[in-house]
């Protein structure tokens, strides 16, 4: 029996096999909430409010002198760089002999409504850096920032150059003159940022999350499940890997309203950093004040930090040693995707070794 379009009606076998796969799919999606992530052993060495600075444990002493300070974004969970064994950038850095530290911003509560980007850059990062200096007895460190964390790392490197030996930026949007669809969504007069931050002490994580998913709605809302459906039929498919990634994508963190407001107004709408107009605690934040070696890593198909937002930094910093790696892929895929361990990580590892 066929439909008018020529497609066959399902027979009983087809229905049952599809039902089995549908149940498997539901189990994969629902089970992702407990997917084991961030398993590399670490110790807490400093804390302030919700922020935690961890040092990843090594079995042998580090072979490199310069510690690496990972600065994570505010709206995502920190375990993206230590997703799971075999798919962990942290694990890779440890295997290359680096001493690795990571700041996890935690999840802000209503009491953090006044916590802005300036406070994070001028009161949190310097103290975390000091804790690293104390722990390692090394005055300088490589600061590596991912996404918004890259923006924080850039501001920190501009304000506190003495302790930054190298700056590595991973898909960090710094110039918002052409910020793509995100820029249009958050434009002045269109996006009600004042009302949003006035209503919520912390902007729910779903707000930026929906914004980024709307950049490619079909792929994010339907394509994810279609791909899972297809891959469940493959016996070599690693369901736990998919679950870990799915968990991270949907595990958004609220944004303290003052930080969110500053992020949208001063960075997206007014583009103050790229226009040399950004001040933090009365001090000018200027890209030309960054004189340490800089490595900028950008993704060619990044919709969250589109190419125009990531492409100018190497020309704008005051460093003589500023280079760029452009990786084929998207915002998250280049960091934890299947090819990350073969493509991006070794390149970063080599660069870090040569700048120790």
């Amino acid at each position: 029996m066929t439909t008018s379009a020529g497609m066959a009606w399902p027979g009983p076998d087809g229905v049952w096999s599809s039902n089995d796969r549908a149940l498997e799919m539901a189990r994969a999606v629902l089970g992702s909430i407990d997917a084991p992530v961030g398993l590399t052993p670490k110790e807490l060495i400093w804390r302030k409010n919700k922020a935690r600075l961890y040092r990843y444990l090594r079995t042998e002493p580090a072979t490199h002198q310069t510690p690496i300070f990972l600065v994570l974004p505010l709206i995502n969970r920190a375990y993206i760089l230590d997703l799971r064994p075999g798919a962990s950038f942290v694990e890779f850095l440890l295997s290359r002999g680096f001493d690795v530290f990571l700041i996890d911003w935690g999840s802000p509560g209503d009491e953090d409504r006044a916590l802005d980007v300036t406070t994070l850059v001028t009161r949190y990062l310097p103290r975390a850096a000091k804790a690293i200096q104390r722990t390692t007895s090394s005055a300088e460190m490589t600061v590596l920032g991912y996404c918004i964390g890259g923006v924080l790392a850039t501001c920190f490197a501009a304000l506190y150059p003495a302790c930054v030996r190298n700056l590595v930026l991973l898909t960090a949007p710094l110039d918002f003159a052409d910020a793509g669809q995100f820029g249009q969504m958050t434009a002045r007069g269109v996006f009600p940022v004042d009302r949003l931050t006035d209503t919520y002490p912390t902007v729910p994580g779903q707000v930026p999350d929906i914004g980024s998913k709307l950049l490619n709605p079909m792929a994010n809302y339907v394509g994810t499940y279609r791909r899972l459906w297809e891959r469940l039929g493959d016996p070599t498919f690693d369901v736990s890997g998919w679950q870990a990634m799915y968990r991270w994508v949907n595990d958004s963190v609220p944004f303290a309203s003052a930080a969110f407001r500053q992020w949208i107004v001063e960075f997206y709408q007014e583009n103050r950093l790229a226009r040399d107009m950004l001040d933090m605690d009365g001090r000018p934040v200027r890209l030309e004040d960054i004189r340490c070696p800089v490595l900028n890593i950008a993704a060619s198909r990044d919709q969250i930090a589109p190419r125009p937002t990531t492409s100018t930094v190497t020309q704008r910093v005051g460093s003589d040693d500023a280079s760029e790696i452009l990786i084929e892929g998207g915002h998250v895929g280049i960091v934890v995707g299947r090819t990350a361990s073969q493509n991006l990580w070794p390149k970063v590892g080599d660069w870090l070794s040569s700048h120790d």
Partner: protein
Amino acid sequence: MTTEDADRASDPYETWRQLYEANERAWTSALEQAMNSPEFNESSGKMLETMLAAQKSVRESMRTYLETMNVPTREDIARLGELVIGIEEKIDQLADRLDGIEERTRPKSEGSAKAKRPAKSVG
């Protein structure tokens, strides 16, 4: 038609997949076009604003209700948290000052022997 083809044809999800694949590009491009338009951004901004107005009104009513019932509101609890955060910041500032004093009074030879590179304070 092979058995495998027949199985695939009888699978309802396979039918759905084919439908999706045949139309994905067209749907994506239509959505992209719609979402890149200023009208869409303006309209979603207005929609968000309306939802926020409703949310604010719910929050205000709840706060008034809790205050009438003599029950602490979220704001009251947040205020306590803010006080604790403020105290923590004051302690951090004191610690920074102590660090500064310690750094200035430490003999120079001790500092250079301990650090791998000449130490400069961050804060």
